[in-house]
């Protein structure tokens, strides 16, 4: 099968949806004429023009709010954040208007927007540009959050996000943009709330989302080659909805769990998952649930230290060995 980058996969999803539905347009800073800060939208403006690719001023609250308002009249805006780190200046629009307009109107309206962009640390840009707000956003009923870990998922989930009638936040990763995966030429979509087993295993489960799933996969390799332990890796793909069934199934199969995420630990996504496991699969646990997350401090700039701050395979292995 052909291989394309994560970046290319997202671009294909955008192009296909733009062609499929005339109400779909992409708006964000530098998305059109500049070809996207991370070149995700490269070439789309030349192909689809000013109407479908709209360069917005540096005005996140303004243009995200505008997208929400436009979606109320049936458009399907795809709003790009250059970084999800910039969502904070648009929080009111995202999390009051995006999340709650439907509820407060008693279901009379819906907000079919997609908000996408990279949400990751690891690029030496300091604390202001390294946020992972999937936990904060998913804390708001009304919002859906997906975190694709590879090109195949990024394309399939992006198309789903655009077609869905609720607001969907897609959190990408700049460190993955340039990596290649197998992606079929034929059209496909991936449902939200359907986790993916990246590697089958029987001794311990690694549950992760976003780039942490790749870290977990690497750790599983080390577990096998150096410790003869067979780890299963479950990639959640979406945070809300969450594939609880798959989580419980892997726990029941291996009886040991390490949760891996690049989120900060306190009230992180894995805090919720850990709670679900202990409540719904307590009797299946042979050991305490372990977590590996980013080290609990604002994201550090210094290159070698940031590598330490974000979970790597060695840290996952070390945690896993504590319970194996």
């Amino acid at each position: 099968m052909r291989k394309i980058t994560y970046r290319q996969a997202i671009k294909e999803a955008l192009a296909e949806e733009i062609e499929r539905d005339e109400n779909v347009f992409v708006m964000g800073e530098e998305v059109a004429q500049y070809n996207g800060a991370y070149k995700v939208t490269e070439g789309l403006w030349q192909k689809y023009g000013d109407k479908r690719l709209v360069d917005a001023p540096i005005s996140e609250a303004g243009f995200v709010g505008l997208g929400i308002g436009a979606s109320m009249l049936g458009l399907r805006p795809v709003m790009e954040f250059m970084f999800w780190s910039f969502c904070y200046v648009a929080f009111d629009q995202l999390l009051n208007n995006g999340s709650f307009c439907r509820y407060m109107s008693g279901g009379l309206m819906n907000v079919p927007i997609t908000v996408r962009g990279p949400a990751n640390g690891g690029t030496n840009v300091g604390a202001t540009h390294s946020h992972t707000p999937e936990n904060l956003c998913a804390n708001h009923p009304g919002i859906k959050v997906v975190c694709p870990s590879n090109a195949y998922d990024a394309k399939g989930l992006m198309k789903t996000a655009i077609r869905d009638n609720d607001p969907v936040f897609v959190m990408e990763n700049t460190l993955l943009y340039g990596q290649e995966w197998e992606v079929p030429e034929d059209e496909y979509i991936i449902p939200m709330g359907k986790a993916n087993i990246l590697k089958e295993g029987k001794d311990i489960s690694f549950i992760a989302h976003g780039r942490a799933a790749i870290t977990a996969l690497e750790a599983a390799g080390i577990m096998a080659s150096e410790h003869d332990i067979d780890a299963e890796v479950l990639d959640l793909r979406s945070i809300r909805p969450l594939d609880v069934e798959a989580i419980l199934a892997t726990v029941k199969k291996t009886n040991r769990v390490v949760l891996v995420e690049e989120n900060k630990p306190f009230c992180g996504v894995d805090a919720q998952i850990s709670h679900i496991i202990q409540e719904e699969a307590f009797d299946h646990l042979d050991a305490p649930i372990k977590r590996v997350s980013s080290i609990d401090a604002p994201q550090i700039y210094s290159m070698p230290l940031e590598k330490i701050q974000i979970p790597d395979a060695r840290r996952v292995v070390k945690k896993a060995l504590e319970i194996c």
Partner: protein
Amino acid sequence: MSDTDTGTENLLYPGQEQEPSAEELAKTEINAALSPEDKLRLYTEMVRIRAFEARSLRAYQQGKIGGFLHLYEGQEAVAVGCVSLMGPDDHIITAYRDHGHALAVGMTMNECMAEMFGKATGCSKGKGGSMHFFAPDKNYWGGHGIVGGQVPLGTGLAFALKYQGKKGCALAFMGDGAVNQGAVHEAFNLAGLWQLPIIFVIENNKYSMGTSQARSSAYDDCLAKRGEAYDMDWGVVNGNNLYHVREKTAEAIKRAHTDSRPTVLEMFTYRYRGHSVADANAEKYREKKEIQDYKTNRDPIALFGNILKAEGLLKDEQAKEIEKTARAEADAAAQFADKSPFPNPEAILEDSYWSVDNKGKDADIDALNQGRIIFEDGGLLKKK
């Protein structure tokens, strides 16, 4: 107020612009087009809003309404005047002082009162309350509680109309305090930059809670002039004079419809009650005399009533009758609200996600949505 006083004094705004006389305003195309029935209807709508607000206040004092209650008494001509000009592709959005706009677009007193009572028969099924009325079927997009937060949304409505090639516009209302919010300035910039068909209406009632305009805003002549910085047309309006509101708004709507030009209109008006009913300071940050002056000399309903009387369209008797009918309607709405049931507890979980509410109706969307999306149901899901 004397019967001959038609409110033509240039009292309401400090700008250079002189307010046209009542006679001039009556003759303008948009006002001359009103039939006698139209005029009486507009008058009646203002009276209905006032009666509704008075009844709401009583219900609040009786403990029937929770939270905040921001009353619109004194500002009726703004909502009624603007809404009277809306066509099928014109849309409206406002802040939390939203009852007047809601009734003006044709929402019923029953559904609005019931909403405030937290009842299932409310316009938002009791999920929004006083600050969050919605009626998308009437192009009314709320009802928003965060100061200034609705302004980018309104700008998005205008963007969508232009995108879809419709000859329509958005009317986005905000208070004089809201104009200092960043989101409002961002929206102004987008509207000017992309020349969106929108009218930003600043309802300047002189105060944001207890802060006067002078203590909150940097300006020379007026707030509307800020529009100039964003390449928008702007104007000032006597918001208590229904004819003036209509005249200026009609011009702005025409600009939006034909040239896709955005406009900022500052409408000078006054709120009689405290910021919210719980605003015990209502008479501390302003003098009783000031409130009294507006009530006796510049009341929008009395002003328009006098104009209609001068035009020979309204008699004192009839005015009394209109008021009586409106009060009875508001009383009936309160009774309706009181008798209506509260929503079932299960309703807490409904209307959050489209995909959950519509499960089973669209196989394509169902297929996209698997897994768990609600993480604490308080036992309600099982009960169901």
